[in-house]
């Protein structure tokens, strides 16, 4: 508790003091312990990686316009999809919502001044940047060609690229996830404002809590897998290489023990965002609050029991395959519960189609498609046909781009007035949402068809009869790319020229909307207290704005 100097009403004439203008200079940013400033540091970093990863995707889609490959050598193509996957997953998607929106919102939503461990929070950003530096080193020095999964023996016996620095980068970045997860868990347990009971928390916090469980329990196993890979490469300890007495499938077990739950690290936070946006723009309390909250925790726990569905055709025991298949079907239940509850929330609501809501509705549809196609892949028999084809590529892009990125963009639009204190241009935002939705489907729906027809993934060439669908997909990707550039431009524009937002432009419930935008350094001028459930839209004054 620093000195609680009451900000007396003297300097009110100009812009009131907030977290953005309270201090200036690079030191005040790079040594900040303010969770809101750290969130912005993360925002800048992950945006950088998003466009780097996106550039690799653009090169791939240009290459695939021609059946013989239009742009690069096959070896280079291998590196393109590997670097696209590594950067997008470990340096954009995993930190996206937790480290930016979560960092910004967790203390605000529970009515606290900061996270429980502000220094640890800053440290996690530095660790992330250090890991990113190692990975960028490997990109500049020739890249990696193993696929983002680092499967042995590509990454061990037959490694011929910068595997060690890239793996080291991911190893290091994992610790930043662990610290963020730890920070969120302790903060949510210990720092809730008076009256903020577990069942009054916004559902975004439930999803952050569930995500944090995965961060803390799953990430160490990825670190172990990559460390063992390193041990084997450097000291010839037999772990994954049969010649040394190891088992290549052990790597896949360890890798997917983390990396399947990592899918839920990406999608659970997006689900939390949707649970905030849908009631706000339907002006209704959310349908089935407790069920949505507990389904987040159920997803977090079940996500650790299904990793073997990535190994159905790799030589895993068929009996284990049966168990993993059945367990994978079970994860569909809590996911479907959420979709049904959001839909029920929309029912008879007075819906408005502002940009965040467009992203939320897009999320519900695209996530449903991604989830249902996942069931094709969780079935032992259909997986034999579809595994390793573009069907898988389409499936997980519907989850990660159609789901996680749509959720992230929806959240960025919803909370941008809170983060920046300014409004973005609504017309442009709706247009961008529409462009992204169209571009996304044009990019990835043809890939479902390609995969079903048998086009394998990770190939630099393909038979000529697949060209039409590939050109469709590449055309969609160019539309999608434009769609992603527009928000970047108008968000930057609005920071200076956007209209002043006021504390609560959406008339939303939740503590973060009861403090000025942008929030003051210590979040609240008076310690908040909570007396009502979340999403109490029914009792809200009409026409509040």
């Amino acid at each position, binding site marked *: 508790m620093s000195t609680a100097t009451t900000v007396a009403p003297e300097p009110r004439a100009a812009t009131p003091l907030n977290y953005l203008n309270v201090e200036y200079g690079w030191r005040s940013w790079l040594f900040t312990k303010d969770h809101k400033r750290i969130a912005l540091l993360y925002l800048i970093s992950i945006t950088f990686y998003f466009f780097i990863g996106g550039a690799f995707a653009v090169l791939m889609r240009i290459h695939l316009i021609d059946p013989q490959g239009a742009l690069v050598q096959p070896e280079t193509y291998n590196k393109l999809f590997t670097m696209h996957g590594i950067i997008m997953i470990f340096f954009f998607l995993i930190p996206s919502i937790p480290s930016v929106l979560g960092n910004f919102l967790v203390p605000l939503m529970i009515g606290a001044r900061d996270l429980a461990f502000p220094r640890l929070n800053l440290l996690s950003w530095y660790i992330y940047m250090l890991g990113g530096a190692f990975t960028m080193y490997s990109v500049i020095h020739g890249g990696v060609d193993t696929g983002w999964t680092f499967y042995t023996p590509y990454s061990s016996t037959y490694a011929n690229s910068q595997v060690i620095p890239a793996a080291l980068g991911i190893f290091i970045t994992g610790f930043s996830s662990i610290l963020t997860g730890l920070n969120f868990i302790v903060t949510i*347990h210990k720092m809730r404002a008076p009256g903020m009971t577990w069942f009054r928390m916004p559902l975004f916090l439930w999803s952050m809590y569930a995500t944090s469980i995965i961060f803390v329990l799953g990430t160490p*196993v990825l670190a172990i897998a990559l460390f063992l890979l390193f041990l084997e490469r450097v000291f010839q300890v037999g772990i994954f290489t049969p010649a040394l007495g190891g088992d290549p499938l052990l790597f896949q*077990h*360890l890798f997917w*023990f983390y990396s399947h739950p990592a899918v839920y690290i990406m999608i659970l936070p997006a689900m939390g965002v949707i649970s905030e946006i849908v009631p706000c723009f339907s002006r209704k309390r959310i349908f089935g609050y407790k069920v949505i909250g507990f389904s987040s925790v159920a997803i977090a726990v079940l996500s*650790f029991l299904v990793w073997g569905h990535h190994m159905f055709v790799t030589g895993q*025991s*068929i*009996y284990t395959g049966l168990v993993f298949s059945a367990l994978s079907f079970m994860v569909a239940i809590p996911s479907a519960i959420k979709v049904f509850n959001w839909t029920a929330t929309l029912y008879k609501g007075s819906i408005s189609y502002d940009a965040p809501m467009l992203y939320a509705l897009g999320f519900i549809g695209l996530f449903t498609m991604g989830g249902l196609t996942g069931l094709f892949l969780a079935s032992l028999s259909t997986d034999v046909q579809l595994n390793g084809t573009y069907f898988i590529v389409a499936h997980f892009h519907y989850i990660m781009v159609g789901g996680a990125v749509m959720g992230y963009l929806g959240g960025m639009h919803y909370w941008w007035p809170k983060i920046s204190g300014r409004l973005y241009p609504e017309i442009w935002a709706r247009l961008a949402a529409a462009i992204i939705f169209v571009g996304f489907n044009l990019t990835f729906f043809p890939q479902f068809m390609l995969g079903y027809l048998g086009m394998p993934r990770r190939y630099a060439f393909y038979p000529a009869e697949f060209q039409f669908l590939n050109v469709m997909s590449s055309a969609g990707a160019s539309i999608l790319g434009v769609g992603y550039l527009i928000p970047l431009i108008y968000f930057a524009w609005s920071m200076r020229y956007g209209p002043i937002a006021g504390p609560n432009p959406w008339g939303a419930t939740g503590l973060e909307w009861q403090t000025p935008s942008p929030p003051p350094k210590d979040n609240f001028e008076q310690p908040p207290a909570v007396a009502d459930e979340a999403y109490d839209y029914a009792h809200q004054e009409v026409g509040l704005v």
Partner: protein
Amino acid sequence: MAAQPIVPFRTYVLVFVALLVLVALTTGAAFIDLGPFNTVVALGIAFIKMMLVLLFFMHLLHSNKLTHVTAVAAAFWLLLLIGLVFADYTSRGWIPDPAPWSSSAPPTHP
């Protein structure tokens, strides 16, 4: 935060001595041929050592329920990882090799 009872310094010394004795025991047991029970003995002693560290050095003996749940959850997750991985390894050989084709075509195996 509930004040934790002060553990006397002697307890820590005793636990430390016990850990050293158990290390010696592990080393000694490795020199005696017990067949498959060598592993069992080594893991058994390791478990006791782990419990001593958890309960005394990491204060679990005097912690609240939430801390206990956290510790048990970590152990449970490790059990999931090891259990399901070994489920694969033990059951891989259960499927008998398929009978060869009865036709005149030579049996093909990928």
